[in-house]
């Protein structure tokens, strides 16, 4: 974990990017404003000079050229506060009147710079001038002052630039604010993750709270953590259980092997060896069941799914088990709905039903009744396989645990079994995307396996 460094942090980058966008935008705005003002000013001035020139020409044609000099002087006086200046040259390029330097006596549009005096002293003024040749060979120059409009343009520009800078700054601050808020949340999340990595598996990520999208993400991650925790717990449980539950048969096996040393007759030895082989077969069966459960739980076995004639399969199972259950002193009643089919793995379904039948026969007293029913899909129900007995049942507090590997209820401590039967059933049902429920059959246990 590193503390977030302000200038390399995502928040700062985010803010900087945001501010740059605004700055660029402001710059663009400024350029546009500038261009428009330039255009406007030039047009205004051009119009003004044109108009002034036309007026003077009009006065010349009306009053004659002698009067033109007076007119210009009159105009010059009148427009003192505006910005027109004049120059009238005769045919010999001698100035007749006007305040512009003779050098500006050029016909057509041109720019000139003159020195002006005011309170602030001398400074150069830029003028836009138009020289017009009059009919008598004189040259009239009218020039407009750009100064005032430049002033206006400058004001506008300054305002735009300031606004741009201000907006960019605001964007920077806002971006930093939002970004660091975001980063703080991210830091909290990262710290949580860090703690989880270091073994606090029950910790969950804090809610982001900035937007529903982030909260959704957090919730999803938390759900994933939940699932992983369950799986890890299962794994730990299983490893412990495996180690624990295999110790007993292995110890017993060792004792038997040791005991062979003290057996005298070949018959005794023969019997011992057989006992040992049985013991090993039991251990192998436990491993096989564990492997099978693991294989089923990773879901790859779905590849072998086909349409299974469930009515036929359960009918055969019932018939196959009836004698064995009778020999064990219990009764099996089978009732099968016809023509029920499911998608699944025949052998696995058979294995699951077998385990349930075995449990019913094993954990009930002699004389108990065991029922195997197949109910086809009907209003609101999917296909159900029901195995019921009238034995002691399973206490409420054990019902959730019986599907765990190696779980043995208090009452079944004395009966044979590895405690893997129901775990395998549960794995098979899950693989088929079905459900398994335990109910009180009053008296006894009712197991309902629903298959989609």
């Amino acid at each position, binding site marked *: 974990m590193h503390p977030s460094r302000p200038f390399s942090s995502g928040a700062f980058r985010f803010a900087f990017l945001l501010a740059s966008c605004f700055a660029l935008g402001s710059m663009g705005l400024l350029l546009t404003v500038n261009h428009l003002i330039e255009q406007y000013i030039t047009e205004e001035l051009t119009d003004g000079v044109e108009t002034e020139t036309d007026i003077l020409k009009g006065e010349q044609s009306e009053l004659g050229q002698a009067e033109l000099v007076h007119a210009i002087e009159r105009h010059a006086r009148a427009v003192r506060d505006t910005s027109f200046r004049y120059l009238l040259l005769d045919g010999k390029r001698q100035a007749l009147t006007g305040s512009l330097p003779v050098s500006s006596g050029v016909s057509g549009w041109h720019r000139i710079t003159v020195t002006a005096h005011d309170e602030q002293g001398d400074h150069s003024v830029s003028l836009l001038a138009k020289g017009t040749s009059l009919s008598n060979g004189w040259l009239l120059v009218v020039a407009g002052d750009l100064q005032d409009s430049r002033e206006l343009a400058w004001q506008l520009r300054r305002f735009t630039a300031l606004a741009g800078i201000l907006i960019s700054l605001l964007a920077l601050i806002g971006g930093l604010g939002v970004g660091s808020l975001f980063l703080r949340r991210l830091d909290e999340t990262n710290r949580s993750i860090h703690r989880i990595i270091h073994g606090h598996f029950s910790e969950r990520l804090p809610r982001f709270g900035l937007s529903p999208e982030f909260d959704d993400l957090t919730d999803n991650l938390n759900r994933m953590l939940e699932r992983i925790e369950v799986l890890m717990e299962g794994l730990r449980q299983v490893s412990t259980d495996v180690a624990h539950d295999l110790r007993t048969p292995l110890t017993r096996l060792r004792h038997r092997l040791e005991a062979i040393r003290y057996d005298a007759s070949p018959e005794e030895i023969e019997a011992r060896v057989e006992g040992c082989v049985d013991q090993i077969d039991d251990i192998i069966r436990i*491993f096989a069941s564990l492997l099978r459960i693991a294989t089923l739980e990773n879901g790859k076995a779905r590849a072998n799914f086909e349409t299974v004639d469930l009515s036929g399969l359960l009918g055969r199972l019932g018939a196959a088990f009836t*004698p064995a259950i009778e*020999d064990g002193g219990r009764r099996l009643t089978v009732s099968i709905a016809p023509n029920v089919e499911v998608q699944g793995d025949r052998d*696995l379904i058979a294995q699951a039903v077998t385990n349930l039948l075995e449990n019913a026969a094993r954990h009930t007293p002699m004389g108990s009744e065991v029922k195997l029913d197949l109910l086809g899909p009907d209003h609101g129900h999917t296909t159900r396989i029901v195995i019921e007995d009238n034995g002691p049942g399973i206490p409420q507090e054990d019902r959730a645990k019986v599907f765990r590997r190696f779980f043995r209820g208090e009452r079944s401590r004395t009966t044979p079994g590895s405690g893997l039967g129901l775990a395998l059933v549960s794995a098979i049902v899950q693989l088929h995307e079905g459900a398994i429920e335990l109910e009180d059959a009053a008296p006894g246990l009712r197991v309902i396996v629903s298959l989609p």
Partner: protein
Amino acid sequence: MKLLLLEDDEETANYLAKALRGEGHVVDIAQTGPDAIFLGASNKYDVLVLDRMVPAVDGLAVLRGLRAAGVQAPALFLTALGEISDRVEGLNAGGDDYLVKPFAASELVARIAALGRRRPVVETSGFITIGDLDIDLLKRAVTRAGRRIDLQQQEFKLLEYMARHVGQVVTRTMLLEHVWDFHFDPGTNLITSHISRLRGKIDRDFDVELIRTVRGVGYRLDAPV
């Protein structure tokens, strides 16, 4: 019989070969796929016993190679534990039987005997006669010493399977597979119960027992000598 055994694990191969030789079979061991194909194509074997998982080659490929070379001998696959789809794959590839590891040597012996060429000949007329036991396969009727014996459907199928393998040991798993089509371990003694019912009807009232228990292995239907 002459057998080919493909098994890469030396200890397993020797143990199985010893058990099979003890039954009077001649066993050739191949430890790699190419060896098995070479041996199988250049000798005449009665039964092929192929491990599915030998290094670098699948037993299935070996069998395909041999079948392509015209080898007709029945094949039995030995498959690893916990692979549910193994059996289907094996049978699709032209295998005749399969056995999941770990298994008892006696199980392998019994299955090889059942696969071998010296199988009892079933009367083509649809009748099997074993001593004074007559089985009519078409009518599903059984008589012993002329007396009619009523059998339930499952009992009949059980008797029929044993009669088709008269004189051979049939194991519990063979019965589960062929009579009930169960390819998993039901764990209970359901075979025992069925056999005892069948015995009750076939053997109980007669002097000679036809159904024998082979301890730790299975059962055998024997024609009285």
